[in-house]
C-alpha cells in the first residue's frame, strides 16, 4: 500500500539525515521524499511516500512522531489532499517526425517544453505520479535520455479547522 506522510520538522542541519536514517534502521521503505522550507523559516516540511501495510505505516508515523525534531506528523488521505510531482524528461528525437509527435503528446499532458534540439527535447510536467508514469509510457518508444523527478509534495485540502 502506498501512503503519503507529511512531516513538519525543525529546519536545522542534519534532520534529513535523521529522518532517512530512521527509515533505514527500522527497515521501512522510502518511495520518494521531498523537503522544503515553510512559511515559517524555523520549520521545513517533508513529504514522504512509502510502501507498506497498515501496521507498518502506523509504526512509521509513531516512530517519526517520537523523533524530537519532528513537530507534526500527518498521514494524508489521497482523496482529501493535493499531491503533485515535477519531472524533467529529456526525450530522444531520431527522425524529424518524432519531434512533432512528442510535442503533441506533451501538449496533451500540458507539459512545458524547455529545450528543443535536433536530437532531443526536454519537457517539464507537474502532475500526479500516475499521470507522469502514463506520459513516460507514451514517450518511452522514442527513447528517454534522462529523467529527474522531484518526488511528491503534498498538502491536505481545506483550512486548519476542516482537517
Amino acid at each position: 500500500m502506498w501512503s503519503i506522510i507529511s512531516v513538519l520538522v525543525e529546519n536545522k542541519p542534519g534532520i534529513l539525515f535523521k529522518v532517512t536514517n530512521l527509515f533505514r534502521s527500522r527497515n521501512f521503505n522510502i518511495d520518494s521524499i521531498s523537503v522544503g522550507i515553510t512559511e515559517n523559516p524555523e520549520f521545513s516540511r517533508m513529504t514522504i511516500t512509502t510502501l507498506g501495510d497498515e501496521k507498518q505505516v502506523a509504526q512509521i508515523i509513531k516512530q517519526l512522531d517520537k523523533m524530537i525534531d519532528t513537530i507534526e506528523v500527518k498521514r494524508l488521505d489521497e482523496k482529501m489532499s493535493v499531491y503533485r510531482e515535477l519531472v524533467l524528461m529529456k526525450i530522444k528525437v531520431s527522425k524529424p517526425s518524432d519531434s512533432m509527435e512528442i510535442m503533441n503528446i506533451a501538449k496533451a499532458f500540458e507539459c512545458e517544453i524547455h529545450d528543443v534540439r535536433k536530437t532531443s527535447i526536454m519537457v517539464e510536467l507537474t502532475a500526479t505520479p500516475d499521470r507522469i508514469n502514463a506520459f513516460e509510457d507514451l514517450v518511452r518508444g522514442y527513447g528517454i535520455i534522462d529523467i529527474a523527478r522531484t518526488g511528491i509534495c503534498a498538502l491536505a485540502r481545506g483550512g486548519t479547522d476542516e482537517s
Partner: protein
Amino acid sequence: MEKMSGARSLMVALEKEGVDIAFGLPGGANLPIYDELYKSNIRHILARHEQSAAHMADGFGRVSRRPGVCFATSGPGATNIVTGIATAQADSAPMVAITGQVPLKMIGRDAFQESDIIGISNPIVKYAFQPTSATEIPEVVKKAFYIASTGRPGPVLIDIPKDVQQNEAEIPFPSEVKIRGYHPWVDPDITQIERAIDMLLSAERPIILAGGGVIISGAFAEIQSIAELLLIPVVTTFKGKGSFPENHPLSLGPIGMHGHAEANKMMTEADCVLAAGSRFSDRSVGTFEEFEKRLKIIHMDVDPAEIGKNQTTTVAIVGDVKASLRIMVKMLVQKAIKRNEDYPWVKRMKETKDYYRENLKLHDHPLAAAKVLRKLREVLPHQSIVTTEVGQHQMWASLFFDVIQPGTFFSSTGLGTMGWGFPAAIGAKAAKPGVPVVDIAGEGSFNMTENSLAVSVLDNLPVIVFIMNNFSLGMVAQWQRTFYDRRMMAIDLKNCPDYVKIAQAYGAQGIRAQSLDEIGNAVKTALKSDVATVIDIPIDPQEDVLPFVAPGTPLTDMILPS
C-alpha cells in the same frame, strides 16, 4: 552575565543539574573540560576504557534514576563509548555522554582523532547535540538532562568541539528549556484504564506481565496492589525481573527464552494480559504471532511507539506506568473491587508452580548453577544490588537468583553487552555506597572489562565479582551443543587468566571457592571487605541453561531438563 569559557560553563551547568560524580577518560580534544574538572567539585572517576566509563554512568543512572555522566575524547574515545550508549538506549537508561570533538574548522577534514560521532551514534541515542558556540552550552546541557531523564529515559550525547570548549563569552544559563517537538508526559486516559479493569475482571485467566518500565518508574507498590487486589499471577520480562518480589505467592518469575517453566506455562494459558512497561521483545515472547493468539493485551507504556510495534493491543494506555497503575489502584479501591481466594485460576497457578518446583530436574553437580546462586541469595542481604554480565550465568541468575527487594537487579537485557556488569556495578556502588553490590559474572564477560578493577580499588568503590567460571564461552558452547551437532568452535578459554591472581595484581581480594560452604564464606568475607573482591567459582562446563525456548519458536515449545 559573567564571561567564562565554554568548558567552564559546562561544569557550572552540570553542577546546576546536581551532578556530583562523572566517569571518563581525558584526551586531546577534551582537555579544556578536564582542566575545568580540576577546579570543580564534581568527583571524577578515571575509567580505564571509555566503554567502561559509559557502563559505569549507565549503572549509576539505572540505580539513582538520574542521568549518569561520562566523558570521552574525540575519535577513538568517542567510538569507544558507542557500545555503552547503545546498551543504555536498548535498556532505556538515563545517561548524558559528553565527547570532545576536533575544533569546528577541522571538522570534515579527516583531522587527527576526528570521528563523526553525531552520525555514528544517531540510531542509538535518544538525542545528540553539537554546540557550535560556547553560549549554547548551558542550554544544551539543560535540554540533554531533560531529554535523558523524562518519558522513556535514554542516552543523550553532547559533542563539543575543542574551540567551543575554549572560547570565552558571556554565557546565559536558562532556568528552564522548552523543546517543542518533545512531549514526554502524557496523562493516562481514564476511560482506557476503566476498560482495562473491566477486561481484567471479566477474564478467566488474567496475568500481569511486568516489564522494565515498572522498575524505571518505580511502580513496585502499585503493581503489587493490583496483583493482590485482583489475585492476578505476575510474570515479568527479564528486564522486569525483580519488579515484583520473587518470593511472593503470586510471583512466577520471568518469561521468555530462559524464563521460568511455571511463568512460560501460565503465560501461554492466560487469556488476558496486563503488560506494564514492556516492549514485548522477541526474547520474552518467543514468536510474535503465537504470543498474541487467544490473548487480549492491555498495553501500558510511556512510549506510544511501543503500542502495536510487536503485538496487537486490545487496550492501550499511554503514559507513565506508575501514574497509570496508581489510577488503576485508586479505582479498584474506590469501587471496593477484590477477588475471592477460591478463584480457580489462582489454584491452577499454585499447582503449576508446585509441579515445576518439585519435578523440574536440576543439573547434577556439586556446583550446579542453581545451588551456587541459591547459596549467594542465602548469604546476600536483600537490599544488595545485583548486576550481571551476559551469558549463561545471566540466565541462571534469572532462573535461580530470587530478587526479593524490588528494583535491586540490573542487567544488559536488550543489547546483551558482555562486559557490562562489572563497570555497571561500580557505577551502582557510586550511586548507593551504603549497600553491597554484586556482579554475577561469567569469566568470558568479566574478561572484557576486568581492568575496571583498578577503578574499583583506587576509587574506593568496592564491589563483589561473583564469577561462575566454566572456562568457556558457555552460552555459545550450549548453542553449539544444541544446534550445531556439538562442533565446538572458539569457545574454550582454557582457564586463563587466573582470576584470583588478576584480582591480587590490582590490589583487590581474590578468593577461589570450590564448594558451597566456601562460596558462602567467600561472600561473607567480601561483604566485610573494604576492597573489591573477586570470587572465582569453578563450575561444570557441561551445564546447560534449561528450560530453553529455542529462538523463533513459541513459549509453548519449552525444552525442559531431561
